[in-house]
């Protein structure tokens, strides 16, 4: 375990090794990731009931603290919290307090004074949720909903849940992540989760301008072309291409990218016949993926959306549970 792993573990877990914040996959071991997947599995069934609610977080207040806008991620976190019976406050900070000159610390102090129990944080700066977790009042759980280029752990875990549903196990699986790895916090979290859960091989496929220089140190192999990268692959994860990368001259054009790295039925044929196709959404049809593949029988893109709610319910309830357990331990020490 690296120093980073040890510090991530120490920050995220309580004295009994239970989750109390969810900031990154780093430092979390296989049993804990498996527990998140198992708990999420149970929450999927809740979403199929007439009354899609359980009382676990009744009376708790969850604040969605989005310093960077994201309709889909915020909606699924909001729905997850409401299905746990929590009260939810949505704050779009980019157009609110901090733009009026209030500091992040002052905003947090005010929110804590409103007796909030959990902050779901999205921020364009890597490490912002870590900073908040270190400075927040004990008992308040922080969930990372995406920070800078660093991590997006709930997205990675909903992908893991989708893979496990379709492939049943991670052992022996070969997974390819295709596209803009350089700017992708999702890819970093996915590579970490896949390796921890025991996938046989993780490959990244993309142009050298969109791959981090030290990408292999994350625990993956690099391919620059689709035919070799997709050979014998069980799972293909397409990443979203941000249009501003074109303006930054990292890519010649969308059309050129699609020609080489876009997933169409011809390229899909390089993978195993039962390979599944994933995408975090929203899809740029005709840029990362053609409609025939996105809507085709191998696509599990909509399963990912459904699983997103279950994973977020699991992480929220486990973190709240871990916070309460830690408070109990602290009270024993004081007594």
């Amino acid at each position: 375990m690296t120093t980073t792993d040890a510090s991530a573990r120490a920050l995220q877990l309580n004295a009994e090794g239970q989750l109390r914040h969810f900031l990154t996959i780093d430092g979390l071991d296989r049993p804990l990731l498996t527990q998140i997947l198992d708990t999420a599995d149970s929450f999927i069934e809740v979403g199929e009931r007439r009354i899609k609610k359980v009382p676990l977080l009744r009376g708790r207040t969850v604040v969605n603290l989005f310093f960077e806008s994201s309709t889909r991620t915020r909606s699924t976190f909001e729905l997850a919290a409401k299905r746990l019976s929590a009260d939810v406050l949505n704050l779009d900070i980019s157009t609110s307090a901090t733009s009026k000159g209030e500091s992040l610390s002052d905003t947090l102090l005010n929110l804590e004074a409103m007796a909030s129990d959990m902050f779901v944080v999205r921020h364009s700066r890597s490490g912002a949720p870590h900073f908040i977790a270190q400075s927040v009042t004990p008992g308040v759980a922080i969930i990372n909903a995406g920070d800078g280029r660093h991590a997006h752990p709930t997205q990675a875990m909903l992908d893991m849940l989708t893979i496990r549903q379709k492939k049943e196990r991670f052992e022996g699986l070969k997974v390819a992540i295709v596209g803009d790895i350089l700017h992708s916090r999702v890819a970093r979290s996915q590579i970490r989760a896949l390796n921890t859960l025991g996938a046989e091989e993780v490959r990244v496929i993309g142009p050298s301008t969109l791959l981090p220089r030290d990408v292999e140190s994350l625990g993956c192999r690099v391919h620059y072309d689709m035919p070799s990268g997709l050979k014998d692959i069980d799972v293909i994860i397409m990443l979203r291409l941000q249009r501003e990368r074109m303006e930054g001259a990292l890519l010649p054009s969308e059309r050129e990218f699609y020609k080489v790295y876009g997933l169409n039925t011809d390229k899909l044929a390089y993978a195993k016949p039962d390979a599944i196709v994933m995408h975090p959404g929203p899809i740029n049809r005709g840029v990362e993926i053609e409609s025939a593949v996105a809507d085709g029988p191998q696509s599990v893109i909509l399963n990912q959306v459904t699983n997103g709610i279950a994973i977020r319910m699991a992480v929220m309830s486990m973190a709240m549970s871990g916070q309460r357990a830690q408070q109990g331990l602290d009270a024993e020490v004081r007594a």
Partner: protein
Amino acid sequence: MTALLKVDALLDDLEQGLRSVLQARQIERPVLIGIRTGGVWLADILHKRLGLDEPFGELDISFYRDDFSRIGLNPRVRPSHLPFETEDRHIVLVDDVIMSGRTIRAAMNEIFDYGRPAGVILATLIDLGSRELPIQPDVVGQRLNLKANERVKLKGPDPLSVELRNADAEPEGA
């Protein structure tokens, strides 16, 4: 303390009691729901003995416990599985042991999230008393008064047995 009966005799009493209650209330097509883990083993046996056509349901009450804020989430939670509509149905809720009544309260809260049943009958193999809520079983295999240091546990599923243990004699942490 009353001597503990053999599990087969307890099951005979439970089945007989349940048949009487169903007959008295003129319920012909009940559905069985067992509370994990022991209640599911018993529901399986009662389901066969009563010769019911519809499969029985399995309930995991972990998401409904009222002590979540104290003991947290059960790490071994599994999805509940009710393979039938509960709306307007007569439900027989089955558990191995009833004591405080809190598990049954949680189970009924969960059942009502699937729909509004016509009624719920509660059957438990063993009743230890010590109720903290006004919830009573309709059918019981055996009532027991345990001493402070005694514990009872249903082991199974095959064979099914009821163990009475002395907590003082158990190693710490057991």
